[in-house]
């Protein structure tokens, strides 16, 4: 009996491979470019930053506050609400730009102008001065209020603050006070991971818990 050849026809296999490859190539969406670069401090916390139901405030080292939120439909809802209530005069193109964009950090007056810029111009331009937080004109509070409404007031919503190492504390305090005024007590600070110092209480606690697990 002659031995069967081990050569298989690879055409179908390659077809499937390329089909998958092209599908993922076309379906992948990269995160939009952030207009600010922030170096977050490190902590020993291992809790993950959730992907959905997040309102994220980015504070850069000059103390400018930027607002961002997940979910394009929700973002659309938010910007449309703001547009009608504060008469920002945004057109469909601006609304689309906000929807697919990343963080914005400007007062309502310049919002239209900022949404018309390209990502590159926003990164290097000085148009965005951060969202105002003074007690007379606390637009950050308005952003939070409207974002909460756009998120459908669900209780899974997390409020994250991502600030730079060099951010002066008074700016952070203003942000925290704004949340306090809005009766929001539970916040999340975005940090990088660092190891627990050897011999510290947290490290010992972790070891004990691991012993129990074994």
């Amino acid at each position: 009996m002659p031995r069967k050849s081990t050569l298989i026809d690879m055409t179908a296999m390659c077809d499937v491979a390329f089909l998958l490859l092209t599908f993922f190539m076309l379906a992948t969406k990269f995160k939009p470019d952030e207009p600010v670069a922030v170096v977050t401090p490190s902590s020993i916390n291992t809790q993950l930053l959730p992907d959905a139901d997040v309102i994220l405030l980015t504070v850069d080292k000059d103390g400018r506050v930027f607002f961002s939120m997940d979910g394009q439909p929700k973002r659309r809802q938010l910007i449309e609400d703001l547009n009608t209530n504060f008469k920002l005069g945004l057109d469909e193109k601006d609304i689309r730009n906000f929807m697919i964009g990343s963080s914005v950090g400007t007062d309502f007056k310049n919002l239209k102008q900022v949404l018309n810029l390209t990502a590159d111009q926003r990164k290097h331009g000085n148009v965005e001065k951060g969202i105002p937080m003074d007690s007379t004109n606390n637009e950050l509070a308005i952003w939070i209020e409207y974002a909460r409404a756009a998120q459908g007031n669900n209780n899974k919503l997390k409020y994250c603050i991502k600030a730079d190492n060099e951010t002066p504390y008074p700016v952070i305090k203003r942000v925290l006070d704004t949340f306090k005024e809005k009766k929001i007590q539970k916040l999340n600070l975005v940090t990088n991971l660092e190891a627990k110092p050897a011999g510290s209480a947290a490290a010992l606690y972790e070891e004990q818990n691991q012993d129990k697990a074994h």
Partner: protein
Amino acid sequence: MTPMVDLGFLLITFFMLTTTMSKPKTMDLIMPKDTEKQEEQNKVKESTALTILLGKKDQVYYYEGLAQDPNASSNPDFFKATTFANTNGIRDVIIKKRDEVARLRNSKGEPEDVVVIIKADDGSTYKNFVDLLDEMAINRIQRYATVDISDQDKQWIKSTEASNGIQ
């Protein structure tokens, strides 16, 4: 050709299954309610409290208690300065105080819990603030609160900075 495609797919599937995207971590921060703050403040005993202040240039200042006793706070050694160093820094101070307080007994005869009061001055940065909150996690301090800094505290920081030559 077949073995190469095999190998290719093996590698692809391996990496697909083993990669985890590194995601940023978060730290919980619970802010006290303003209305409750007064009561919270009054509930803290002098003997169980440690007040930590954050100054400029990554300096840390601390004193034991809440500085409500004028006799204690007039003592020149009352207000101390330290740093975020791993040894002989604020961590050792927190551990020392924690263990001291754990030896005290409350009215029910249970060990007391140390309460850390965090006050950040205008010269401090966000990094200092997070580092200090991280110290709370590292030393497993259950009770701590971020409180507004008082004028008296600012005065102490100023004079300590002047005597330590911190601009």
